[in-house]
């Protein structure tokens, strides 16, 4: 069950999967424990090493061991290559299963074809994969030589390294290949795929490549090709026309899938259609072309494999062989994995494609199949072609045209079709289990059967698109750095680790778009209902291996800009007249080049210094702003941080006050700075308050700090200037003395009332007085009921929930904070609010200022020093230290035809174009929606330039520029092929969460569902091949839309449970508004990791968020970006418990622990490493909660199993999918 997603992963392991899968099934039926147990075994075995495996594999390689061998493989290469193999392995069993599904589906025949194709494909695929793998492998082996195979296997463990290494080179090489690619017209598409594939496989394949298709291209082919592939692909993709044909085939494929869904939707996600066409056209040629070349190797491989192959029959054989190869080449698997990714990569499009057939299948297949596909084709000419074709197209698609690949996919799927629907489900399941319990390989077939049966009764959760599968597929295919030079190219998913190379467009870390191929006309856009939006994180932190934006200084005149639209100099400016003028890419206006900026053009019309100037060659860079860009035409003062601490009774009693004071003493040494060698120029000030405010004079010349009490809260002012904002180093003694004394001074306070509005006013006035921008850190506990401006009353009324008046609860209670926010923004006063409520505090109102000023809200309900200290302190530390800009204004300029019309995030807007942010930190994201106001052209695409003017933490005024170009299309299919579901969900959630301010939540939910249904219906109607209405066809790249959308609909904001407070909802609502895609993704679809085995550096493959996926014998880690749970199954093994908790007894685990005991064993170490790394990835610290199965706390945990029915009435994934299907059908009819 769980496995689907894993399957993919597993699939890579492919071989193992089969084994696992079976076991898993068994477990399903019987008990997880068993599988796990085995798991451990294997796991350990694995880790230990390749060595052990080697031997194990050895056997597999030999072939006879096929089954056993696969398992080991799976384990090894798991996600990677093996997908192919697994499918293969699974394939055999699947067929049966698939068939059942098919029946379930629409037509047997249909299914057969499609599924067969797919599944068949799988087989074929498998074969293909085999081939592919084989190729890769073979390639790998080849180089090594026949004998090499074995060695490689043994080497596998090492493989990882090699792989990784390999891929890069391949990429580099890739470019060159590109040209070559073109040379291979027929194969183009194919080549591309191959390339991609190669990319994955590169290491091993390289040789192959060279030998094979790549031949022409660079042998490297693989690795190399991919990149080129992409580049070349576009063209090839364009060849796209071909795809259509492929699509045709695809449809069938999809249909079969649909057939599955019979009862429910099928996801022959869009991919099928697309892919199909692609396939047809693409497949054949590519397959042939690309494959052919490879084929040879495969063939050769097959040869070797044959041995193994024989047993499984052709397909299986193929697969096995595939696996085998990997096995033989232990490393290969990884490479294979990569290859697979590549495959998938090329496939990416394919990946989407796969979904086309069956999301699940795709998932499963994608990884595995992808690779297998190619091989398959080879082995099985007919299917293979399709498959291959499909793949290539996919690759193409990835590059430019998805169609090609899609068809290919379709093909493959179709081929495997049989497997397709049915198989996929089962297959996945097994793999998952496999993974979970590698050892538990019991009887694959047996396991399959149960799965099938299940599917018959109801929709098999494994048969519907699996987020895990998609994520893993994407990971697998993204081994090369993502270069931004190509317009309209969708980046890897947010869940994938990848490197970015800026070649003219902004990195996806800065900007992600919902669609990378925008409709040319507004009619199209309206028809599709796909939102056109960009999620922009202007100051995003880049990983250490990527260069931060360069700082460009254009001298006294300031940055060079278009005369008309004021766009800043960027790569889209076209220099003409020998370089004397330039034409704006946005508005086409021609502007003189200032003499000091003049440069000659080369023969291509490029400036000679193009590559010396970041603003002419990069997507992101910064300009140094001149005094003209400063407030009042005066260079800004360094910013200031003001800490405002609530010292009322609750704050003191909870320990918050002493914790903050204690922490600030050290934290002040880490104020943000640009040059780590220089002290921060940020000045600090301190205020405490309850009903009145206490300012502190901490001037360095004082022996003791002085407290200044301001009781006149109705008319706030700053009682002092000199000595309030000070340099930390100069006043260190006084500050420390102050921080020591604050907790003592208020230790006996009996004041329970607080004010809030005046607190912000105080900070604001202080900044005004100091004439600088800055940030307020407010530590607040309670509803401000004391007599003062901004006084609030408790209005939490559960009775309003669900009524039309519910929206009022999200609106601020008083208008005071709105106007205050405006003042804050004008001064560049950013407010960060740390809440420590014990009861209702009206977050909706208190949050107005933070949200409007680019600040953050942190909420620690029922704060207890002991348990929440760490979380709070980490949040505080991060918040204080993080890079931040002040007094920022952001403007998004676009090329004629579209314009930014709507903005979401934490900011203030006083007009319709300028986003004003008092503060902008590296975590803040602004989502911008675009609408057409004219036609776009396919030739020029759509350009956008996001310019952020801000004051850096050192007080320098700068402009950060992000440029982004996307393609434009006149075919809806192109649009659907280049969407990013995660980003769409990010947009939808923000849109919906804002809508609750003005509409009843039910209306909001309905309109969300409606819009998604329209999107999908439009696709079905316009892009998918005709098929039975009973079939649910999803676009490949949107196949997860339903599951994610369901998560949004079920979120606390839109569908609160009885125990969810109004504050929590308001808090989440505001939190989401400035989340980037990475965070929103994990927030809506939490990451659930099985921890039964932790090996090497790789994370275990996640499982789907459903209770069904949890094994009583296991331990799981669930991460949402805000919470971190460690779920312990009631039957968890003693060994596991000892490793994690240091106790063998389940009952002795302390459910209140917030950190794991530090135990000296590799498992514990690794687990803690994982937890630490998770925390490091998120902008907020996640407190660890240990949840014991059947414990009370499990209720909370279950809330995050988003594929299940929720306690508050949210639909399960399966149910929701049915609902969506129904909606779509209604729209279609």
């Amino acid at each position: 069950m769980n496995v689907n997603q894993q399957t993919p992963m597993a699939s890579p392991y492919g071989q193992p999967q089969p084994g696992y899968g079976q076991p898993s099934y068994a477990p399903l039926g019987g008990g997880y424990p068993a599988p796990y147990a085995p798991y451990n075994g294997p796991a350990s075995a694995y880790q230990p090493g390749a060595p052990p495996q080697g031997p194990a594999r050895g056997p597999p390689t030999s072939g006879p061991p096929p089954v056993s061998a696969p398992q080991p493989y799976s384990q090894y290469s798991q996600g990677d290559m093996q997908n192919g193999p697994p499918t293969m392995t699974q394939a055999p069993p699947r067929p049966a299963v698939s068939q059942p599904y098919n029946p379930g589906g629409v037509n047997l025949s249909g299914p057969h074809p499609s599924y067969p194709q797919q599944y068949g494909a799988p087989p074929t695929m498998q074969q293909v994969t085999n081939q592919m793998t084989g190729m890769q492998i073979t390639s790998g082996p080849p180089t090594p030589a026949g004998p090499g195979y074995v060695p490689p296997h043994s080497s596998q463990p090492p493989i990882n390294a090699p792989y990784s290494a390999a891929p890069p080179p391949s990429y580099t090489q890739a470019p060159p290949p590109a040209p070559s690619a073109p040379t291979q017209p027929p194969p183009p598409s194919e080549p591309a795929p191959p390339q991609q594939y190669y990319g994955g496989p590169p290491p091993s394949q390289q040789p192959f490549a060279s030998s094979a298709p790549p031949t022409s291209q660079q042998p490297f082919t693989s690795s190399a090709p991919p990149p080129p592939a992409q580049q070349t692909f576009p063209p090839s993709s364009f060849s796209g026309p071909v795809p259509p044909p492929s699509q045709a085939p695809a449809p069938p494929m999809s249909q079969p899938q649909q057939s599955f869904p019979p009862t429910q939707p099928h996801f022959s996600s869009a991919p099928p259609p697309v892919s199909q066409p692609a396939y047809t056209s693409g497949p054949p040629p590519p397959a042939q072309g690309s494959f052919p070349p490879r084929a040879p190797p495969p063939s050769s491989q097959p040869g070797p494999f044959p041995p193994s192959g024989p047993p499984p029959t052709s397909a299986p054989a193929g697969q096995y062989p595939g696996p085998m190869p990997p096995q033989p080449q232990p490393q290969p698997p990884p490479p294979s994995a990569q290859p697979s990714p590549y495959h998938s990569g090329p496939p990416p499009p394919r990946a989407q494609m796969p979904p086309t057939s069956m999301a699940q299948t795709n998932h499963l297949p994608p990884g595995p199949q992808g690779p297998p596909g190619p091989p398959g084709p080879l082995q099985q000419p007919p299917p293979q072609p399709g498959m291959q074709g499909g793949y290539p197209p996919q690759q193409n698609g990835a590059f430019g045209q998805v169609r090609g690949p899609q068809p290919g996919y379709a093909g493959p799927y179709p081929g495997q079709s049989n497997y397709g629907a049915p198989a996929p489900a089962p297959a996945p399941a097994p793999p998952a289990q496999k993974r979970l319990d590698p050892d538990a390989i019991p009887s694959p077939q047996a396991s399959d059967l149960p799965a099938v049966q299940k599917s018959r009764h109801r929709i098999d959760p494994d048969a519907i698109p699996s987020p895990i599968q998609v994520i893993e597929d994407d990971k697998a295919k993204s081994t090369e750095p993502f270069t931004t030079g190509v317009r309209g190219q969708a980046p890897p998913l947010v869940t994938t680790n990848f490197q970015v190379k800026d070649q003219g467009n902004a990195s996806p870390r800065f900007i992600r778009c919902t669609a990378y191929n925008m409709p040319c006309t507004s009619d199209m856009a309206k028809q599709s209902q796909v939102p056109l939006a960009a999620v922009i994180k202007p100051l995003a932190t880049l990983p250490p291996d990527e260069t931060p934006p360069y700082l460009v200084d254009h001298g006294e005149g300031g940055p060079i800009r278009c005369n008309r639209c004021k766009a800043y100099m960027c790569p889209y400016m076209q220099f003409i007249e020998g370089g004397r003028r330039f034409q704006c890419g946005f508005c086409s206006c021609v502007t003189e080049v200032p003499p000091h900026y003049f440069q000659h053009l080369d023969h291509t019309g490029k400036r000679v210094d193009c590559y010396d100037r970041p603003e002419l060659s990069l997507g992101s860079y910064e300009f140094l702003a001149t005094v003209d860009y400063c407030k009042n035409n005066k260079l800004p003062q360094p910013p200031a941080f003001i800490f405002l601490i609530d010292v009322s009774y609750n704050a003191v009693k909870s320990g918050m006050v002493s914790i903050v004071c204690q922490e600030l003493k050290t934290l002040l040494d880490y104020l943000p700075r640009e040059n780590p060698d220089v002290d921060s120029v940020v000045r600090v000030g301190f205020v405490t308050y309850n009903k009145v405010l206490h300012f502190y004079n901490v001037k360095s010349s004082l022996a003791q700090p002085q407290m200044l009490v301001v009781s006149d809260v109705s008319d706030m002012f700053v009682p002092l200037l000199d000595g309030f904002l000070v340099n930390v180093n100069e006043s260190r003694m006084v500050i420390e003395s102050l921080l020591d004394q604050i907790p003592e001074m208020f230790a006996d306070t009996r004041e329970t009332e607080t004010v809030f509005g005046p607190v912000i006013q105080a900070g604001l006035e202080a900044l005004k007085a100091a004439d600088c921008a800055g940030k307020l850190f407010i530590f607040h506990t309670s509803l401000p009921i004391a007599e003062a401006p901004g006084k609030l009353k408790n209005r939490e009324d559960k009775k309003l929930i669900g009524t039309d008046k519910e929206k009022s609860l999200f609106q601020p209670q008083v208008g005071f904070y709105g106007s205050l926010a405006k003042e804050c923004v004008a001064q560049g006063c950013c407010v960060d609010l740390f809440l420590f409520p014990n009861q209702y505090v009206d977050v909706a109102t208190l949050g107005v200022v933070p949200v409007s000023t680019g600040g953050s809200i942190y909420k620690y309900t029922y704060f207890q020093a002991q348990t929440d200290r760490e979380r709070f302190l980490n949040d505080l530390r991060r918040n204080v230290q993080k890079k931040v800009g002040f007094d920022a204004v952001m403007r998004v300029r676009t090329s004629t035809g579209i314009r930014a019309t709507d903005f979401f995030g934490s900011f203030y807007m006083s007009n319709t174009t300028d986003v004003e942010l008092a503060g902008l930190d590296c975590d803040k994201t602004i989502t911008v929606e675009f609408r057409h106001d004219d036609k776009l052209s396919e030739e020029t695409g759509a350009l956008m330039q996001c310019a952020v003017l801000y004051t850096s933490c050192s007080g320098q005024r700068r402009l950060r520029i992000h440029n982004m170009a996307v393609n434009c299309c006149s075919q809806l299919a192109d649009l659907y092929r280049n969407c990013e579901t995660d980003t769409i969900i990010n947009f939808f959630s923000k849109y919906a969460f804002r809508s609750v301010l003005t509409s009843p939540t039910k209306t909001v939910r309905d309109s969300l569902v409606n819009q998604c249904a329209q999107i999908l219906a439009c696709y079905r109607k316009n892009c998918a091949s005709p098929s039975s209405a009973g079939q649910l066809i999803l676009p490949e790249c949107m196949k997860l839309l339903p599951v994610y959308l369901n998560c949004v609909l079920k979120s606390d904001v839109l569908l609160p449970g009885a125990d969810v407070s109004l504050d929590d909802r308001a808090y989440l609502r505001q939190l989401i508004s400035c989340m980037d895609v990475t965070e929103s993704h994990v927030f809506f679809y939490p990451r659930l990791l099985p921890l039964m085995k932790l090996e090497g550096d790789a994370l275990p493959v996640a499982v789907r968020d459903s209770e069904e996926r949890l094994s009583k014998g296991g331990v799981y880690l669930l991460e949402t970006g805000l919470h971190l749970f460690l779920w312990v199954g009631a039957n968890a093994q003693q060994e596991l418990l000892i490793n994690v908790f240091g106790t063998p007894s389940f009952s002795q685990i302390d459910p209140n622990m917030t950190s794991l005991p530090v135990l000296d064993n590799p498992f514990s170490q690794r687990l803690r490493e994982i937890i630490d790394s998770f925390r490091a990835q998120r902008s907020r610290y996640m407190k660890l909660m240990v949840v014991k199965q059947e414990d009370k706390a499990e209720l909370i945990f279950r809330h995050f199993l988003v594929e299940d029915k929720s306690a508050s009435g949210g639909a399960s994934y399966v149910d929701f999918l049915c609902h969506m299907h129904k909606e779509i059908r209604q729209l279609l009819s």
Partner: protein
Amino acid sequence: MTTYQEFIQQNEDRDGVRFSWNLWPSSRLEATRLVVPVSCLFTPLKERPDLPPVQYEPVLCSRANCKAVLNPLCQVDFRAKIWACNFCFQRNPFPPSYAGISDVNQPAELMPQFSTIEYIVQRGPPAPLIFLYVVDTCLEEEDLQALRESLQMSLSLLPPNALVGLITFGRMVQVHELSCEGIAKSYVFRGTKELSSKQIQEMLGLMKPTASGQQGRPLAPQDAVAASCRFLQPVHRVDMNLTDLLGELQRDPWPVPQGKRPLRSTGVALSVAVGLLEGTFPNTGARVMLFTGGPPTQGPGMVVGDELKTPIRSWHDIQKDNARYLKKATKHYEALANRSAVNGHSIDIYACALDQTGLLEMKCLANLTGGHIVMGDSFNTSLFKQTFQRVFTKDYNGDFRMAFGGTLEIKTSRELKVCGAIGPCVSLNSKSPCVSENEMGIGGTSQWKVCSLNPSTTLAMYFEVVNQHNAPIPQGGRGAIQFVTQYQHSNTQKRIRVTTIARNWADAQSQIQHIEGSFDQEVAAVLMARLGVFRAESEEGPDVLRWLDRQLIRLFMFHLRRSPFLQVFNNSPDESSYYRHHFVRQDLTQSLIMIQPILYSYSFYGPPEPVLLDSSSILPDRILLMDTFFQLVIYHGETIAQWRKAGYQEMAEYENFKQLLQAPLDDAQEILQTRFPMPRYIDTEHGGSQARFLLSKVNPSQTHNNLYAWGQETGAPILTDDVSLQVFMDHLKKLAVSSSA
């Protein structure tokens, strides 16, 4: 029979009272013809080392609207144990405690030598003295340093149980909490916002929040004391704290842009001070001591804007109605002064700056509450330092020479009514049968509040004879007046001092000579001068002069006419306010000095001698010592100055010259020691720039206009257009004989 001179002196010594007429004309008509009203200077707390206070309550007349105190003038029936009130003739029985009374066993208050008697009464718990420092921080560092030291020094002068508080102000107003350890804590108020007393008390946490949190109500007394303790602490407990606090007192940290005055929130600071005391210690003796180094420049009570290019108002501006803040500021301070007076708190102003500080607007604070005003150039001068120190001088008992929360009540016999008082007091609006409808000074009441008193505080009281001409007073009848002063002694005791005096009635027609003989010209001059000053405060200068000119007071009037009390020429509004402030509260001697400065001449020709305040007294071989009360000038004549310059005084053979030089210095020192406020001490010589202080005071008998004296060795010519005494007298004589009006 003693002479009137002796009689007057005796009365003054015993009762602190000097009347303009010591025989009273028996009817209204006659009294009016005398021009100078029946009036007196009364020094309520005249030091009487020989007067031991009695430790019991006074016996009061039982008539509700009389309540006069038993006194030596009452007729007593020892047998019946009954006494008759000499004001209302009510017959009152003695209280039980007087059961043993008899001819030979009389209580003190019945003995004639106890016409002034002081009672110590036990009412409520002893209230501590309160000193609330209100300190301007917009000072130059040097000034601030000097002020810090003075304030720190003053702590050692306070009785240990006295409560002290500190408010500082600049752009903001800070009320410092004194009880805290470690962190110095203060409450801050915005300097621009008018706050009600209730708001201030709420903001200082002096109100107990009610459950609803809507409206505070005053704390119960003990709570209030506890709460106020944060701001007002016994000196002995916070001595160290406060010393440190004062030591760390910083200049106002807000930047003062070029061309601007610092923003000084004097108005709010005082408002907070008054509000604080009002909320915590109503009706308890307290001194608010304002130390300011410049004019209020913002908020309520602002006197001048912060633009330096706009100078502070001058008399010229005021006459042209160009002083835009004057009325508003005055109103603000008057309101504060009245609130403060009601609660018995007095406000001192120590203003040290070269320019004006807004005394004109703020004077009422001190005038109405009995506070001091001290004006100097800088806090870093001995004038300020010593004056401030002198505030805390002690008497022979070791008690402060100050009393608080005084109430002065006057009772008169039927033929007299009281018209009003002029002095550092406010009306308590107490109507009684002895209140005249004819107001002179602060009238319409028989009771005045004198928030702060010292032994020299002197009020002028004006009376009216209401007896009709056709209702003659029985022969031998005497009119009586009783002064009842209740106050809080500086040792925290509550005391009542009762002075009862009587004068004979005289028929103006038959006894005009007697009446004439009983005239006390000195006191009359002062009394008329006070009336003049009082009118000058409210009327245009020239009118007052004309009014005065019409009154016939001999020599004094000439000088008074030229004095800064009436003349505003060459004086800033602040200076005028300052001079007038002192004039209306000093005792007779000092007042006379103010009116007609004293000039002593030192020479080899004999002992020092008083000489005429005339330019003819300025001779080359003389050293002159002039005391104008506010200034003490030593003037070396031309020759003396040359000798001094030549250094003869250093030579042994000229020891006598050295002694001559020393003599005036010693005398001046003596004056400096006792005078409050310390006069400006000027040592100058012929031709010195400071000689102007002398030249401006002397009678210009020789000017560039009357050349007959030119070149003679008779004095120094004064370059002035003012008329000389000679001319004035001539003119006066002419008027006196020629006009009957």
